[in-house]
């Protein structure tokens, strides 16, 4: 695991997040997206003493989430289907941008048919939240914080590498128990 230069982190135990009401997808309902993010945020708040609160006001939220296409003014234009999927900024900037041109899917196990370029929203959301918290990219291919994600793949459970990195930055959630990391059991056994 790695951190951004200077190891920036949030110094608050509750972070608010909101979704842009203008930069959104028309083929996924806001409930779909909100459900995905509740799950993704919970993966991280299970481990560290930081909780995430969904709010309505995008402008005052700590974490701002939106779907943008092409050049959207932050110097990192998106590039259409595949290529770069999303990006997020280090603490305490709080912005998380998804490439609106991707074919985002929620709740798909990718075992059946479907678009060969479909990308799992929850996997990318879990990864970008790691950046929002201050984690950099990992060299461990199994890690959520590994920079690359193949289409039609799901990677939503934190591994030992992800947990070790974020614990070192924020300390442990007092309620953290190993079995709350059930998703990473395989990695722990192999850790």
């Amino acid at each position, binding site marked *: 695991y790695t951190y951004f230069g200077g190891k920036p982190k949030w110094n608050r135990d509750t972070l608010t997040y909101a979704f842009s009401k203008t930069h959104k997808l028309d083929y996924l309902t806001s409930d779909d997206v909100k459900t995905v993010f509740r799950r993704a945020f919970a993966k991280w708040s299970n481990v560290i003493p930081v909780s995430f609160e969904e709010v309505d006001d995008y402008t005052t939220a700590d974490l701002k989430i939106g779907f943008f296409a092409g050049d959207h003014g932050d110097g990192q234009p998106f590039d259409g289907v595949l*290529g770069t999927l999303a990006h997020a900024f280090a603490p305490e900037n709080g912005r998380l941008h998804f490439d609106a041109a991707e074919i985002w899917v929620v709740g798909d196990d990718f075992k059946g048919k479907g678009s060969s370029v479909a990308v799992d929203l929850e996997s990318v959301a879990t990864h970008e939240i790691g950046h929002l918290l201050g984690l950099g990219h990992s060299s461990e291919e199994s890690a959520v914080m590994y920079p*690359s994600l193949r289409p039609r793949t799901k990677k939503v459970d934190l591994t030992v590498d992800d947990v070790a990195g974020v614990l070192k930055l924020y300390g442990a959630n007092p309620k953290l128990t190993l079995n709350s990391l059930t998703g990473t059991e395989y990695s722990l056994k192999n850790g």
Partner: protein
Amino acid sequence: RNLPEEVEESTAKTTQTIHVSNSTWHDFSRLVDVQKGSHVSGVSDLKRYLHRFGYVGDDDDGNNFSDVFDGRLESAISLYQKNLGLPITGRLDTSTVTLMSSPRCGVSDTHMFNSGVRTTAH
């Protein structure tokens, strides 16, 4: 033998399917096993990709990258392979090119080797 009319029609429909692809990335497959010192069209795109994620610094002449597989590109590939957990060969082997062609996070990898803090979980 004359084809029945409706078969003709269905063929026409098939040709109307639009294949979505992102030509910027997928062309890398043509670069598999390109050797250092060679001049191959498309290498400049690869340099632009590696520059985007922090592996190739700004070029002297304003990032007009050449199509020559030079020493700088070889070291950039080695660093990329090291960071992404691939065998470090400095060469455009299949696994490296496949990974470069895969979708990824837009955050640059500079924090993995510049001022970022690198720690290994044991």
